[in-house]
């Protein structure tokens, strides 16, 4: 139907109004993020190219990349490796503990699921610092764990201020971030597919490896990103449970800004950390959306997506995007 020019003009005006309204809705968040995220990030970036004077002051006149060069120092490299290893270990442990638990919740009756999810969330609602101090008390040489071990004849144990204590604390802190995306993926899982696998001669374990696990991959990836990223840069947990001996990236950066008074190095490390995380997330995102259609890449076949009944694959990749765009929890 041909439209009159006035009608088309009206349509454009409506679209403009729609855009204006959209901007208005986003404005408070945008302003907030601009002031408290973009500006500090810009300052950090600027500082990373600055010079540390002999007295520990930061000179903003003499631009260079010395700070980035000193990231290659043996001490710093060692700290990065240790942090990476601890974050990997934390992520792996969270996955191994979290998957069966998420599976358990997702396969309960609907009413029970809600209760179990609340139970998962409760520790998360408590102040993080309080929880970490509670663990410190628990693991301390006079704490309940040690007392119990002593009375059983195993002797008092000293794990506080060791990497073990830090790992325990990190797993505890970040487990929720693993369980929730896994639960979402498992809850959306079409269990008829697991049944189909059983019908096609797969035993329970095979059906899990070949069908359930690949189909909940989006949840696994999201959970791992949500745990790895904050645990790599975490500060509070290693500081309280690890003592000064197990220095990690987060604490090291904090030191550069405080005691060591080497702001350019702290800033440079921060920038590198952010860039590394962004690259990791981008790679994950790419492999996440690519794996499902890897065969189609480069082919010119028409993609026909069936609407309705079984679009599980599609909806799960949708959930991936949703979970990933959630803001990563700030490193404690």
């Amino acid at each position, binding site marked *: 139907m041909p439209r009159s020019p006035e009608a088309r003009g009206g349509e454009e005006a409506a679209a403009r109004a729609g855009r204006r309204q959209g901007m208005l809705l986003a404005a408070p968040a945008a302003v907030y993020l601009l002031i408290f995220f973009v500006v500090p990030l810009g300052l950090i970036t600027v500082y990373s190219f600055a010079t540390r004077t002999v007295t520990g002051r930061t000179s903003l006149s003499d631009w260079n990349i010395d700070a980035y060069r000193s990231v290659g120092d043996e001490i710093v490299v060692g700290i990065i490796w240790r942090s990476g290893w601890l974050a990997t270990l934390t992520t792996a442990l969270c996955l191994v503990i979290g998957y069966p638990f998420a599976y358990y919740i997702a396969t309960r009756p609907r009413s029970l699921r809600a209760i179990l999810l609340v139970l998962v969330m409760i520790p998360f609602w408590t102040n993080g610092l309080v929880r970490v101090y509670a663990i410190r008390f628990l693991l301390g040489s006079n704490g309940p764990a040690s007392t119990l071990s002593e009375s059983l004849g195993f002797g008092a144990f000293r794990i506080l201020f060791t990497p073990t204590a830090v790992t325990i604390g990190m797993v505890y802190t970040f487990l929720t971030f693993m369980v929730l995306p896994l639960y979402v993926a498992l809850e959306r899982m079409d269990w008829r597919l697991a*049944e189909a696998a059983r019908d*096609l001669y797969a035993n329970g374990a095979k059906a899990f490896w070949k069908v359930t696990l690949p189909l909940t991959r989006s949840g696994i990836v999201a959970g791992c990103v949500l745990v790895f990223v904050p645990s790599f840069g975490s500060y509070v947990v290693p500081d309280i449970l690890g003592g000064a001996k197990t220095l990690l990236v987060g604490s090291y950066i904090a030191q550069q800004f405080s005691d060591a008074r080497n702001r350019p190095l702290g800033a440079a490390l921060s920038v590198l950390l952010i860039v590394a995380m962004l690259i990791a997330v981008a790679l994950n995102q790419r492999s996440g959306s690519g794996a499902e259609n890897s065969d189609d890449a480069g082919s010119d076949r028409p993609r026909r997506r069936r609407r309705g009944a079984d679009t599980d*694959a599609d909806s799960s990749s949708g959930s991936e995007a949703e979970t990933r765009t959630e803001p990563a929890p700030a490193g404690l």
Partner: protein
Amino acid sequence: MAAPTPAVEIDGVTKRFGDVVAVDDITLTIDDGEFFALLGPSGCGKTTTLRMIAGLDLPSSGSLRIFGDEVGMAPPDRRPVNTVFQAYALFPHMTVRQNIEFGLRMRRVNKSEMSQRTEQAIAMVRLAGMEERRPSQLSGGQQQRVALARALVNQPKVLLLDEPLGALDLKLRQEMQQELKALQQQVGITFIFVTHDQEEALAMSERIGVMSQGHLLQVGSPREIYEHPTSRFVADFIGRTNLIEAEVESAGTLRLQNGKLIAAGISAPSGAAVAVSLRPEHIRVHPRDASASRGDPGDPGGDSLDGTIADVTYLGHAVVYSVAAGPTTIEARREGDLGEPLAVGASVTVSWDHGAVAVIED
């Protein structure tokens, strides 16, 4: 000579989910090579029965044998049956070929045999050229074929199909009905399929088991089920029918509620309450005065009732009349009548042959 071992023997099987009895003491034997339909409305227990044969649900009590082997409690991967699931349940993360190969891989069939059997299955369901596609890139009919190939490639002794055509549109469904029948004859194995569509069951199967509320009401050929229903439910569920309450007057005679006596083949004792099932297509409708002049009420080969036309539905190939005859309304379906349909309010006589009367004694 000993009778051949039946494909499936269900012996006194009951399935409870908590307090709900989904399947109530069913006994059923399905022969080797048979195309058998389990028919019933949703929630009647037909899918649960199928799932128990597959091993996806375990019976609460009773015995279940497949080719003589007791399998009641065996897990699904230890049974010589495969299932075509409702909505197909194809693995979305695998290609068509990977879907079809799945069962063979799980049973560690060697490579050369696997590729040979997979090719055969793909050719059988005419999916050549689609092997590397994902299920989401296929049409409904194509997905259906993948599901069939994925099950049949394992050469099961029994193929179970759960509403296999339910997700397809009418035209495709009719095509697939023919194709499934041809496929069953080609592979020669027992097909058991579950459907709520009575026309589909009549068109496709050699025998039908009608279920309602967990009970197996009647088992028989499509013709037996349609022409000689043994219960009100079966008569009403399979096709359309007029159910008229009656009482046995004497051997061979029934008394309708309005006092009229009609003839029927009946063995129940006098005074027993029964129902008469009369299919709409077996009922003739005559304008009253015309029939009176022909002396139709005295027709020795049939019976008749007088009434008034209450409603007329014109369907093109047929005309459906609702005739109010005393306390009952009788539906009559006339196909191939030429000329103007009778008008609402016309006085008519409806009549039928003795052979059209099915007496239900339940």
